[in-house]
């Protein structure tokens, strides 16, 4: 008896229930789907015909999840635009670079301090540095913060974070997937993946007119078939030259973002991204054995503390540099603390390359904590600001500054 469809259907029912609960509580669905995935799995009971172990269908669920990663990164590439980057002001460039640098360096330090080898440390530093664009945008809209003065800076920093993610994933996948141990072999592999990325940049800049013509397809049906064919083929091909398939999807998204069909592709991809993305979070949870969570608990908690500190400091510095008040700057750090889909994708790359399996429960706990805590902190930013204000006496400083300004004005 082949119950494959029933098993996948059961998984989808669980995903749907998780998504509905998350929606009712007004939370991102990411942490809920991971938790549900963790609860079921090989250790779960079988109830009559409902098999919650998902042993038979594990492979197909993992594969659907892989497709989810492709769509998530393809969409990230589409959203990206070189034009937007050039337009982003000095404040965003400085704030964004500083944010990424601080998180990454602290991540490296943390990885070494807890005694991880270099490869694992790089992955940890990477996943600590990428905040979740999806959760941050949702928090800003839900908390009605879109009108606030710090919002442009937050979104700009996130954009920078996404660029870092693309560069980091490309180089690290060359480094980890090379399969060779000699320095020369690894360097060659890294150079290949960086060269591959540059090739895509050139195609994006120079090939846009040609692509515009080729993709000028009236029928939606044919259009989507062509786009998906290119997406899967390029992603699969990338894998053969040691560039992770997800990077292939991301780079292809970048190429399409420069064409005039960008919006049309975006609209078509969103439902697929949402559906397969949800399966991906569930499959990630499914791949975790709950008994390993205890081993990773302190490791994750430490990483959460590191991230909170790094985010507060980076947000405060970026905000103050851009001339925002202390209150608005506090909001920056608290809002971009959320971690989600991209951290899991980075961890996945490490797991694929056969690194220490503790990375999976570590990332799961880390993302769970910050996907839930991040939005909560953002919501309670006023209380956090009041508390910090007691320590740093910012309000008095602001008053003194005003008095100074008035004095200067009176003198003149």
């Amino acid at each position, binding site marked *: 008896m082949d119950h494959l469809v029933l098993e996948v259907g059961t998984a989808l029912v669980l995903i749907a229930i998780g998504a509905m609960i998350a929606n009712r509580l007004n939370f991102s669905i990411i942490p809920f789907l991971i938790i549900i995935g963790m609860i079921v799995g090989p250790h779960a009971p079988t109830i009559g015909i409902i098999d919650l172990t998902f042993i038979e269908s594990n492979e197909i669920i993992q594969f659907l999840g892989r497709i989810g990663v492709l769509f998530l990164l393809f969409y990230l590439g589409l*959203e990206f635009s070189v034009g*937007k980057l050039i*337009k982003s002001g000095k404040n965003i460039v400085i704030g964004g670079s500083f944010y990424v640098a601080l998180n990454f360096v602290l991540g490296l330090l943390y990885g070494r301090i807890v005694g991880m080898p270099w490869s694992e440390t790089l992955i940890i530093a990477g996943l600590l540095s990428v905040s979740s*664009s999806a959760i941050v*945008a949702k928090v*800003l*809209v839900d908390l*009605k913060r*879109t*009108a*606030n*003065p710090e*919002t*442009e800076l937050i*979104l*700009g920093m*996130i*954009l920078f974070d996404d660029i870092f993610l693309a560069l980091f994933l490309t180089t690290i996948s060359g480094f980890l997937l090379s399969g060779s141990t000699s320095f020369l072999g690894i360097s060659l592999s890294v150079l290949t993946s960086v060269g591959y990325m540059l090739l895509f940049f050139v195609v994006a800049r120079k090939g846009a007119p040609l692509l515009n013509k080729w993709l000028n397809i009236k029928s939606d049906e044919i259009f989507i078939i062509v786009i998906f064919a290119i997406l899967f083929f390029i992603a699969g091909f990338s894998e053969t030259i040691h560039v992770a398939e997800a990077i292939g999807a991301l780079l292809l998204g970048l190429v399409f973002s420069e064409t005039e069909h960008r919006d049309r592709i975006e609209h078509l991809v969103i439902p697929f991204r949402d559906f397969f993305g949800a399966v991906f979070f569930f499959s990630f949870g499914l791949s975790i054995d709950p008994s390993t969570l205890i081993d990773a608990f302190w490791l994750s908690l430490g990483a959460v503390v590191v991230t909170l500190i790094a985010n507060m400091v980076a947000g405060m510095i970026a905000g103050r540099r851009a001339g925002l*008040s202390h*209150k*608005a700057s506090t909001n920056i750090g608290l809002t971009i603390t959320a971690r989600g889909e991209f951290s899991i994708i980075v961890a996945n790359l490490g797991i694929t390359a056969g690194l220490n399996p503790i990375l999976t429960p570590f990332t799961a706990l880390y993302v769970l904590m910050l996907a839930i805590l991040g939005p909560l902190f953002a919501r309670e930013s006023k209380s956090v600001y009041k508390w910090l204000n007691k320590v740093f006496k910012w309000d008095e400083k602001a008053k003194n500054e005003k008095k100074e300004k008035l004095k200067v004005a009176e003198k003149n």
Partner: protein
Amino acid sequence: MNIRESELPGIGCKFEIITRNQDKLVIVIHDDGRREIYHFDSDDYDEVVSSVTLSDQEARQIAGILGGMAYKPKALESVEFAFDDLIIEWFQVEPNAPAVNKKIGDLDIRSQFGVTVIAIKKKHSQKSHNPGPDTVIEAGDTLVISGERQQIKEIISKLLSNKE
């Protein structure tokens, strides 16, 4: 009034407005068509006092009310309202203008200027009514005319305003 426009990647577009009274107003147009209006504290430009969320349709209706389509403020002589290139203008005919005491049909406004007279409000009544070719234009009447900006300018300078 000071208006600053900025893009919110992945969310939409934001307009920050500081009015002459130093009130801060922010309008966010979401990519899904929703509009949000935020009113900030005049003493602390970081604090939102209140906000309103509107659907696309509601926003258009309110824009019409704000733009003076439903009720024209008494203080204004002329109001204009734009739909892309098409403008609707309220104009009070000046005394001794070329069009005074002439019939709309005789002036041949539509083919001469490419402008349509949508409504006419007689000088001493509050009601607007639909003009026909036999309607006579008098000084002090308010005409509601629609056309392109250039055509509107032309008809106002040639027919409806006092040349002396």
